Structures are given as C-alpha cells and as structure tokens.
C-alpha cells in the first residue's frame, strides 16, 4: 500500500506538470468551457443534472484521463525512465496500481471541478435568492459514474500503453477506442430507453438509467483492471521496442 501511494504521489506530480504552460492552458480552457460556459448557457437543466450535463462531464473527464493514460508506460519508456523504475524494488502491482490510482484521482479532480465550477457560476450569475444544490441522488450517481468511467479510462489507457511501441500509437488507438465506446454507450442507452425497454413496458427514470450504467461499467472495470494486472510483466515490458 505504501509503495502504491509512493507511485501515486510521483505520478500526480508528473501529471500536473505535463505539457508545461500549454498543458495548464488546455486544462483551463476545458474547465472554462465545460465548467462555466456550458453550465451558464443551459443553467436550469445543468442544476438538475439533466440534458447533456452528465454526458458532458463524463466525456470530458474520460478524454482527459485516457490521453494521460496513453503516456503512462510508453511515455516513460520513450523518456528512458521506465527501465530504471523496473530495476528498482517497486513491485509490478504497485507500479501499475499507482499509475492507475493517480489517473483516477486526476479524473475525479476534473469531475469535481466541473461540478463545482458549474454550480458556482450558476449560483453567482443566476442567483435565485437562496442557495440551490444539485439533486442529491443524481449528484451521487454522477460521482459514482465519474469514478467508474475514470477507472475504465485509466485501466484501458494503461493496458494500451503497456502494449504500444510509441506514445503516438497508444494515443491514436485510444482516441479511436474512446470515440467508439462513447458513441456506442450513448446510442446503446438511447436505443435501450427509447425503444427496447418501452416495448416490453419498462420505463426508466434518469436515476435508474444511471444506476444501470454504473453497474454495467463496474463489471467492465473489473474485467479491464484484471486484464491490466495480468498483462503487466517486467520482462515483457523490457522486450517491447527492442
């Protein structure tokens, strides 16, 4: 556990400094658009976490985490730091879980920031005479979904990064994969809620739908995470690209 937290600490430092000024600017633009501009445009539905609020939060988080995850192993190999890390006493499991843990923490930070910024911006600009909060059930489900989406993005990203020869290759694979998953889940849910379930007399509320998605993603998370743990082998990593 101590080794994993050591890795998380180091990975977080690296994540926060990646890209330099451009990296900070990109994060700022993402938070401004997703956490201020969009919530102010559709402020009433945002405060109900309806319409596109939750998909937007999850999509932005997923994209950010997956982009950073692509770099996790192959980036270290390209920067020639991986071999030294593998030659240390750090266990395979601690290295892998540390990297995933830092990415999940980073993603949750984005999820929290988007929710908090949106709430702050709307509260200030559209003051209702009293403090209005997000519906608690939907807020908890959004945070839960944020967690499982981040675990999925981090684990899948790390898995691809483990097998890729270059960071560019990993990023390309994950960009395509990310789009397929995003559109697949979105259209799958739309189809499920608008035609399949109503045809058998089942109508789901938004909270029920989100809970269903949460359960589905948790199962996928377990599979992908297990796969990443099984696939992580020092000797294999040393041979990639040689």
């Amino acid at each position, binding site marked *: 556990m*101590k*080794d994993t937290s*050591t890795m998380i*600490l*180091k990975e977080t*430092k*690296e994540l926060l*400094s*990646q890209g330099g000024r451009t990296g900070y600017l990109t994060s700022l633009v993402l938070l401004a658009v997703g956490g201020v501009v969009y919530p102010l445009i559709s402020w009433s539905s945002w405060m109900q976490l309806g319409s596109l609020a939750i998909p937007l939060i999850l999509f932005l988080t997923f994209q950010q985490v997956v982009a950073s995850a692509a770099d996790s192993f192959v980036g270290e190999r390209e*920067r*020639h*730091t991986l*071999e*030294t*890390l*593998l*030659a*240390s*006493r*750090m*266990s395979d499991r601690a290295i892998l879980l540390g990297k995933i843990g830092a990415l999940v923490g980073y993603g949750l930070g984005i999820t929290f920031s988007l929710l908090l910024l949106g709430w702050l911006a709307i509260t200030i600009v559209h003051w209702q005479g009293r403090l209005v909060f997000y519906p608690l059930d939907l807020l908890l489900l959004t945070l839960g979904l944020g967690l499982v989406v981040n675990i999925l993005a981090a684990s899948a990203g790390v898995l691809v990064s483990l097998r890729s020869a270059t960071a560019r290759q990993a990023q390309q694979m994950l960009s395509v994969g990310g789009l397929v998953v995003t559109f697949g889940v979105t259209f799958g849910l739309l189809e499920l809620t608008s035609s399949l379930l109503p045809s058998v007399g089942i109508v789901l509320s938004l909270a029920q739908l989100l809970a269903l998605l949460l359960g589905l993603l948790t199962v996928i998370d377990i599979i992908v995470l297990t796969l990443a743990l099984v696939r992580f082998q*020092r*000797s294999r990593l*040393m*041979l990639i690209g040689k």
Partner: protein
Amino acid sequence: MNELSLEVPAGIVFGFLGPNGAGKTTTIQLLLGLLEPSRGRASVLGFDTRTQADKIRERTGTLLEFSGLYERMSAEDNLDFYGRIYQMSASERRARIKELLTHLDLWDRRGERVGTWSRGMKQQLAVARTLLHHPQLVFLDEPVAGLDPIAASRLNNDLASLVKHEGVTVFMNTHNMADQVGVIRQGKLLALGNPDELRLKQGRPQAEIYGHGFTTRMVGALKHQPGVVHAEQSNSHLSITLRDGSDVGPLVHLIVQQGGVVEEVRRGNADLEDVFLALMEEQRA
C-alpha cells in the same frame, strides 16, 4: 549470452568490457531479473535471478544506459521518490540527499528541474540516486558514455570517491577504477583477471619515442622491422607496438640514420584498451 560463467567477489569494482552488442547490458538486465534467461542460472548476492529477483533489486542500485531521471521533476524530488521506493524514512531521506548532493556539489541546485541540467550533471545525480539507499551492490552501465572529457573525468572522480566512501561492490560496463576485469564478445567471456595481470598476459610491449624530424617514410621503414607489430606517428612522438622480446635499440638507430632526432624513449606495456583491442583481433582471427 553464450555459456558465460563468471564469479564476482564482494567488495570489488568489476569492469565488464566488450564491443557494442557484446551482451554487457543484457548481462546486467539478466542479473537484475529484468530479462529471463532461456537456460542457465545466475545468482546475485546469493539470490537466484529467476525466482528471487525482487530481493536482488531491493539490495542493489542501478544506473543503466540512460540516467532514468524524471526531467520535469526537481533533483531533490527525483531522489526523494527513489528514497521512498526504498522505504527510507523522511529524516533518513533528507539527511542522505543532503550528504550525497553536497558531496557532488549539487546541493545548491537541488530545487531545479533536472530537464534544464547538462548531461554530466544528470549523470552525477543518477549516481547519487544509485547509491541513495546504501545498496550492497551497484550496477553501472557505461556511466560516462556520451560525456565530454571534462564531465567524464569529473564523474569518474566522483564515482571513485563515493565507491571508496560507501564500500560498495560495483559491477560496471567500463574498465575505469576496476579491480577486476572481464572481457566479453558475442556473449562469450574472453578473458578475466585484474587489469595489471591482463596487461602483462595479453598486452604487447610498447615503445614511445619522443623527438623531432620524424617522417612518414621513417614510419614506413619502422613497420617493416622484424620486431615491430605496428608503428604510427602522433604529434611529436612515435608509438611502436613491439613483438615480445624485441629490442628498441635498432629502431632508435634506424630513426637517427634517417635524420630523426631522438630525445626520449619510454618502454612499457599496452594499456587496457590495447589489451581489449588485441583480444578482439585474436577472437576475430
């Protein structure tokens, strides 16, 4: 690796020599358990490289082909991270980082991002990282490769003083400071022994002749003498490799006859690099 068998005693600096692609780096990776041998076995500090690699990595420090430093992090953060990996307490880490960086004259620059440093400074820092947790054994893979002569000399001095100070066993892919040397080619061990023994056993006698008036014709004539293996002119002196038992007197006589002025003659054995080249030539033949 091809039936490579060698034993390195504790407490020495072992130099592993060989041309590019000879298997030096692969040997280090095998000994650290980073690669699995297809057959054969090796043990490091009494631990099997296949089944107890984690125990080996716990007790060793490594500076591989690249410095392995995180360039976006400060020098201190780099060392602190590895100190945490080796489970050193916060106070231990602070004291040890200060001790090593002060020794290497880097303490005042500890807060700077490593990416802004020269290659020589990065290698110094990597050496500090390698020794941070008081390992019993350190692996150094060509630590001065790619450094300019001044940086290389400085790093060699730093390494020598730290190794002496720490009393650690060193396995390195270079011959500097080595108490014992192994020469490898295509994964096969060609020679093993201490550098002086190897020089005596494998090195041919050398003669360095200082003076002026040396000509290309003179060098050509020297090359045709029966006791001469090789002769060349470099700046103000002639370097001559002799056959065993050859006398340098007739050569001096020839030089003077051809109009050269001899001011000083030095005799000695070939250095380790010449021994290495001779071994390579022998094996190729």
